[in-house]
């Protein structure tokens, strides 16, 4: 595989990483909540599609149409009932609770589905490729995922910039007491943000489950990649998250092209470089207060 091929695959992979990172970035940006269960929620959704698809003989994408909205509802409820109690000046309660949640999800999945590696099958589309140029083939599925990620991020951008609820969400993340004085119910806003975060995590989980193998313990690795994408791109900027995902994806794939066993390590090295030389990220949103 040529270097150009590696870079292109990396860019497309970046779209998937950006999807993963969006939910994490959203929860942190709006309510300073670090969700350590984020990766496990994505895996939960993949298993949800697997289970539903097997039980009702549904193709994965149809099952996803049920699972993803269900995850959004789960996010809303989890925020109102559980995570709202952890919102406050200290980040520690949220870290502890979401860590516990991660452990619960992983073990529940292990109990229910066994530790076998699983894969969601699309019946051929996931391996189909498009010949773009001599020596350069691009997978249809990664291309679709990338396009979908860009569309989703664009949609979220418009949502936050132009809608009443999106504006209220930005206001709440700026100053939640002042937002209350303007009539905004901050618990409801937080819950909506959590619903979006859980839904994007679910979507990313399902798409990853089609592209690669997953098992009950795949969550933490996904969490790590999501974190790296957010930090590389810079907090508070959806397009920064896309850029961060792309940088991570390219770093991993170029690393694999150089030395196949060091794919993940290459990503970590680039992450460390960004932390060392540009800790605010590539496209940070400056906050003046």
């Amino acid at each position, binding site marked *: 595989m040529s270097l150009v091929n590696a870079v292109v695959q990396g860019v497309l992979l970046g779209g998937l990483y950006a999807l993963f990172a969006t939910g994490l970035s959203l929860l942190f940006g709006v309510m300073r909540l670090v969700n350590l269960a984020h990766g496990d929620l994505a895996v939960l959704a993949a298993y949800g599609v697997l289970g539903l698809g097997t039980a009702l003989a549904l193709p994965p994408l149809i099952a996803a149409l049920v699972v993803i909205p269900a995850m959004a509802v789960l996010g809303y409820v989890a925020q109102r009932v559980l995570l709202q109690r952890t919102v406050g000046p200290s980040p520690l309660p949220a870290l502890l609770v979401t860590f516990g949640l991660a452990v619960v999800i992983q073990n529940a999945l292990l109990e229910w589905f066994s530790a076998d590696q699983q894969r969601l099958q699309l019946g051929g589309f996931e391996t189909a490729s498009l010949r773009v140029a001599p020596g350069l083939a691009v997978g249809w599925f990664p291309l679709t995922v990338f396009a979908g990620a860009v569309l989703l991020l664009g949609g979220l951008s418009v949502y936050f910039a132009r809608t009443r609820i999106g*504006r209220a969400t930005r206001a709440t993340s700026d*100053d939640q007491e002042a937002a209350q004085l303007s*009539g905004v119910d901050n618990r409801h806003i937080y819950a909506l943000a959590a619903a979006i975060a859980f839904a994007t995590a679910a979507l990313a989980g399902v798409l990853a489950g089609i592209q690669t193998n997953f098992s009950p313990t795949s969550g933490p690795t996904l969490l790590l990649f999501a974190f790296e994408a957010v930090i590389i791109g810079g907090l508070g900027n959806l397009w920064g998250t896309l850029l961060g995902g792309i940088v991570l994806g390219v770093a991993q794939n170029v690393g694999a092209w150089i030395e196949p066993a060091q794919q993940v390590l290459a990503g970590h090295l680039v992450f460390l470089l960004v932390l060392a030389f540009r800790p605010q990220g590539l496209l940070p949103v400056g*906050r003046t207060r």
Partner: protein
Amino acid sequence: MTGPLLEVTDLVVHYGDFQALYGVSLAVTDGETLALMGANGAGKSTLLNTVAGLRAATSGQVQFAGRDLAGMPAFQRVAVGIALVPEGRRLFPTLTAHENLLVGEYRARPGPWRLGAVYELFPFLEPLRDRPAALLSGGEQQAVAIGRALMSNPRLLLFDEVSLGLAPVVIQQLYGVLARITAAGTTVLLVEQDVGRALGAADRVHCLLEGRTALTGAASGITREALSVAYFGV
């Protein structure tokens, strides 16, 4: 409507172990302007924050239009008709001036204060619409903060130290605007440290000293000497 628009009865408020209000009672009738005065730490902001719903009282009652507001969260009080212009303006820094006003409309009641009316009240904000709020001057921020509160079309407007940190010329402008707001029928409860301004703008004055009522009465009937005594507790 019989009875005052806002009635506070024996309000006791604590910050942890520290007691800020020791059973304060006051009433504001529909359409009047009440100036709440007192030295720093007297409990003025605490009183406003409790009426707005940001703080829970230890004991005592806050009644609005005859309705007990106990347990009602701040965002619902906006729907009922109470709006607070908080101390230090507290605009949303990453939103533009225009977006700050739009957020004020989030749970607006029906009424005359829409975007057009607010820009007419503060014409100098029109060219600043798309400027991030953090980059506005103090006077411009105060105007946006007042506009944001007006956008909910409140029956009762609470002002917490609107002249803090502003140039005299700007303060003069703001009090001119206040006169137009009260002329439109809005009831105003304003915290103001400047004695002259307070006596000039208000119908009645209520002075707090260390969490207790020290003086209350019509602005026209209070002398500066009496107010100084109540203010400083000499």
